[in-house]
């Protein structure tokens, strides 16, 4: 950690160990551009710019003297304008991409159960019967957009290190893997690599005993107490049986002292050797890095947990001569914007995640999708050409696109009819394979679409979306409350009911006490009394609260702010907010114009703003903040928003003095989500990037969605 006033330029942004590899080996290092700045947003209830965990209610955060030197070095406000925003706000779409036009009136693929036409703008979600593929599809980046760094190196590093660690235990061994690490491990190494390094059998670390006959046991686990207990039981059972084996525990991404304590307590310290697999960043896609710590959300926002390895800035003379690579870094805490994460997703990738659960960039498509009797594991990333073109699209466009694709494909197949032998030979050897591959992908995604349609129709998705949009816009609250109540009474999915309640609570600054009581009682009656604990969790996280009986604050506040200057009003509100953390969603939404005014239809095929990811009804708050800061090059002019966001500390580091950063790297932006980001947010920012010539890199503790968020808060495990 560097000391105040001694900050070297440029600063290497290092996150845990992986970045540290940048020191000399120059491997996939990211440095903060000389002209970049660090923006972060964090709620008032926390300490200063450090990422100390915070837990329950009524905790005022850490003492001011706990301020880290890092925080002291961070100056709020005052930014330089150094970003070349480029020509015009919008690239002419036609000029940059080929537009494929379809004969009009062509039916899209025959999808059973397509919903009846529905005129309302916000609800017209899934059916655009006249399938037209527009230029917006697979809209390319502006030619001056910066290139993304190559993150695949991170995978290789992780794999090499793992192999090295496995070789530390020479000879045949059985490997026990924690369930949570399996998918990430899949992305890094496959079974044959493990076999090459003499891993004999694989076991899952779970609550039942495993009978391994190997003389050497290796455990690959997260540093958790329960894993230590599992290992201890195994080792102690061996001891009882008079059996000696070699044991090795590999912690990922690091070992915790608490784990060693357990090993010591259980009397097996020394019997097992420990190592660390510093694998903390998994590239899920060309622009998406995940720490794969889904439990981070719960630990950080509910319990209390310092970040495992906090992002830190360290001096590094090595980087002095280098051109910085990243212009801006945003660090966003999930609790700055719960609303976006709670909404139903309607862009394709998000919808696939909501419906099938994307795990570590891959998804299991069941028989209903593959239209065979087998399930299929499919990797979803930029390498899947079909997926790459539809991932960011609103679902209503996807049908049309896929059907057009299918027709094009058919046409290409059909070309072979007129071919002579030689041409045919060429065709078979050169094109057929690609066409077949495309064919396979197409039918897979069409299958997925159909399956999504079927499921969504069944659960009355239209009604649901309508309610969500009403909550976001703040009208017919009573109807929405009744809708939620009925959901609960009919024992519709407990997670769904919870999600809607949270959405109601956050958008309305808490439920009115009468509703809170009645909904809670009915919830406990419908889904089980033990959910009392879930409600307690939600209240502590600020996701589901009750308006304080005397919560006329809003009225007082608005009166006061009319009377006195903004600054004074800010102070008064500060005093109020310390009483109860309030989401202020409505006010923020107004300030940032999150609900776009649209005259007539919102054209989802040619989106005009980021709201398209929610059918034009809502611009994701998290993404809007980033957009606004980038536009202004600072937090200036956003004071009111910042106040409403309950951000006491908006760390802002401006390093404009250095002019080495190229304009290109200035438009490369790293967005770090603490507590998870959703695919909708990623899609929205990708859209912003295409519009303004930025490239975004996403780093998240895990990809999340409303279901995962609610499950993390739910005390009763399914």
């Amino acid at each position, binding site marked *: 950690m560097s000391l105040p006033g001694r900050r070297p330029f440029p600063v290497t942004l290092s996150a845990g160990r992986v970045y540290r590899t940048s*020191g000399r080996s120059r491997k996939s290092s990211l440095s903060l551009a000389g002209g970049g700045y660090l923006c972060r947003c964090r709620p008032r209830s926390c300490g200063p710019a450090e990422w100390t965990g915070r837990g329950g209610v009524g905790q005022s*955060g850490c003492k001011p003297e706990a301020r880290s*030197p890092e925080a002291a070095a961070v100056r709020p406000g005052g930014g330089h304008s150094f970003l070349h925003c480029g020509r015009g706000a919008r690239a002419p779409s036609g000029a940059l991409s080929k537009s494929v036009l379809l004969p009009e009136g062509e039916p899209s693929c025959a999808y059973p159960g397509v919903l009846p036409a529905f005129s309302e703008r916000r609800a017209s979600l899934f059916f655009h019967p006249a399938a037209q593929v527009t230029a917006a599809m697979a809209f390319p980046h502006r030619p001056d957009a910066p290139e993304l760094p190559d993150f695949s190196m991170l995978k290789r590093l992780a794999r090499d290190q793992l192999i090295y660690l496995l070789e530390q235990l020479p000879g045949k061994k059985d490997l026990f893997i924690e369930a949570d690490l399996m998918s990430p491990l899949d992305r890094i190494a496959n079974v044959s690599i493990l076999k090459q390094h003499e891993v004999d059998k694989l076991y899952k670390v779970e609550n039942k005993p495993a009978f391994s006959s190997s003389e050497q046991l290796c455990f690959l686990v997260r540093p958790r107490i329960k894993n230590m207990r599992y290992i201890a039981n195994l080792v102690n059972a061996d001891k009882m049986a008079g059996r000696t084996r070699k044991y090795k525990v590999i912690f990922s991404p*690091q070992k915790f002292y608490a784990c060693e304590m357990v090993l010591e307590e259980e009397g097996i310290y020394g019997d097992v050797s*420990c190592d660390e697999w510093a694998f903390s960043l998994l590239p899920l896609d060309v622009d998406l890095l995940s720490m794969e710590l889904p439990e981070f959300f719960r630990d950080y926002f509910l319990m209390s947990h310092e970040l495992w390895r906090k992002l830190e800035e360290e001096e590094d003379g090595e980087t002095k001569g280098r051109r910085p690579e990243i212009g801006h870094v945003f660090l966003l805490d999930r609790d700055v914007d719960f609303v976006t994460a709670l909404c139903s997703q309607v862009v394709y990738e998000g919808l696939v995640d909501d419906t099938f659960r994307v795990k570590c960039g891959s998804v299991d498509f069941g028989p209903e999708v593959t239209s065979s009797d087998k399930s299929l594991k499919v990797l979803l990333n930029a390498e899947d050409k079909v997926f790459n073109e539809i991932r960011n699209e609103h679902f209503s466009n996807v049908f049309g696109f896929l059907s057009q694709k299918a027709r094009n494909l058919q046409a290409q197949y059909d070309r072979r009819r007129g071919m002579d032998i030689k041409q045919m030979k060429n065709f078979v050897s050169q094109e057929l394979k690609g066409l077949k591959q495309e064919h396979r992908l197409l039918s897979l995604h069409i299958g997925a679409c159909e399956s999504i349609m079927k499921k969504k129709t069944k659960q009355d998705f239209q009604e649901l979306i309508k309610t969500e949009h009403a909550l976001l816009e703040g009208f017919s609250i009573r109807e929405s409350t009744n809708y939620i109540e009925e959901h609960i009474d*009919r024992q519709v999915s407990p997670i769904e009911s919870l999600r809607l309640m949270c959405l109601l609570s956050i958008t309305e600054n808490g439920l009115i006490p009468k509703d809170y009581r009645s909904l809670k009682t009915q919830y406990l*009656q*419908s889904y089980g009394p033990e959910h*009392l604990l879930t409600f307690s969790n939600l209240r502590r996280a600020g996701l589901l609260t009750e308006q304080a009986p005397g919560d006329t604050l809003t009225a007082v506040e608005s009166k006061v702010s009319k009377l006195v200057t903004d600054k004074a009003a800010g102070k008064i509100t500060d005093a109020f907010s310390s009483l109860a953390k309030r989401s202020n969603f409505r006010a923020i939404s107004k300030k940032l114009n999150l609900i776009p005014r649209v005259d007539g239809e919102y054209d989802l095929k040619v989106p005009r703003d980021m709201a398209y990811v929610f059918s034009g009804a809502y611009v994701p708050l998290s993404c809007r903040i980033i957009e606004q800061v980038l536009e202004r090059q600072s937090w200036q002019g956003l004071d009111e928003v910042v106040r409403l966001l309950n951000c006491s500390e908006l760390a802002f580091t401006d390093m404009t003095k250095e002019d080495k950063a190229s304009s290109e790297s200035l438009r490369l932006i790293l967005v770090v989500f603490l507590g998870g980001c959703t695919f909708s947010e990623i899609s929205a920012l990708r859209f912003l990037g295409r519009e303004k010539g930025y490239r975004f890199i996403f780093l998240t503790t895990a990809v999340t969605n409303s279901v995962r968020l609610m499950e993390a808060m739910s005390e009763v495990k399914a």
Partner: protein
Amino acid sequence: MNRTKGDEEEYWNSSKFKAFTFDDEDDELSQVVNSLRDFVDDDDADDDLERVSWSISWSIKETSSNSGSNHEREQLKNRNSFSSYAQLPKPASTYSLSSFFRGRTRPGSFQSLSDALSDTSAKSYAPELGRPKGEYRDYSNDWSPSDTVRRLRKGKVCSLERFRSLQDKLQLLEEAVSMHDGNVITAVLIFLKRTLSKEILFRELEVRQVALRHLIHFLKEIGDQKLLLDLFRFLDRTEELALTHYREHLNIQDPEKRKEFLKTCIGLPFSAEDSAHIQDHYTLLERQIIIEANDRHLESAGQTEIFRKHPRKASILNMPLVTTLFYSCFYHYTEAEGTFSSPVNLKKTFKIPEKQYVLTALAARAKLRAWHDVDALFTTKNWLGYTKKRAPIGFHRVVEILHKNSAPVQILQEYVNLVEDVDTKLNLATKFKCHDVVIDTCRDLKDRQQLLVYRSKVDKGSAEEEKIDAILNSSQIRWKN
């Protein structure tokens, strides 16, 4: 740590801890000297002070290892690839200065120099100054709190045993907290928990919220329920105490034991609202145990028709109230209010709202295709004895639920007809193919066009078509279109 030397080198080369490599050593030492000068010149250079003590302690470490055994040196090498230190001349002053500064690093708040020289610190650090030289041999014992924390942060083994005075322990804790590394904070807390009485530990943590949160999380993780409850009691966090105690029930599988445990929760200091929920939870499980025992017996006896026809798929134990109500409506619908398993009894005991009750009973009776019961559910008599159909959940919902349970058209029709809103009625009737309702509604609306459209949808030559034709041909109706 089992790193081989090659790896070690790789590791350090790739890391940024240049202070430990030979090349940077010169810099480091000159920095030390510079900082020393700073110290002499400038009283406010707190951070520099820190740096001094930091780098000097490294050199002390070298001193001790120098005089130590070969083995010790080897170890040291492995740890830090640090041996180069030995070849460097040490400033004579380093040694005593370092011991002088040790421990005077920032304990949370920035201590000024004069603070550090005050009585208290002199008292606590003086003994160290006078320690016999031999004691320094154990280099790892020689770290100041901040050095110790730094080492912990890098994942190194570091004994905390030497921090014996409360002040030292707290200073260690504050250093750890200011480092913002949860792992390190927890390591220090484990040490504190072991070496302090819980009263003292709690008292000190009460004023150190960050550390306190970590302790709470740690205790939850390792499942030290007892200490956790003690802690909440000490902090007077009554609601958390109650919830934590209540959470335990999830780990109890045996229903009787769980019930007994829930009984102990009833008196806990929950909010008034939650107290009622806990009471209900207990009562519910108590009921379920009785019902379960009774029904299991009935089922195995094989005498009761309903259990023979519809064998139970799962036990009712630990199910939510609504599920229990459904079960009771399914198996015990006609029972008198006096029995525990009767739906009416459940409704009264748990004050189930009418809406919820009707919804659940409807679903259960429809599933059994007991249409008569369904009918009774919505029939009310007024004081004149007239019967009237009334549904608190709205008849459109009733229709949907009936349809889900594949009710015959005649039944559906009856309820579709009761839907008040004409549009909804028409939609539902069309959706569920209640031809008569559609036809009659169109007739009542005098909507000839819609009727014509509908005619094209019904089967050719069917009774419906005939009916439509009859109406269309009727001269009595004055169509609106």
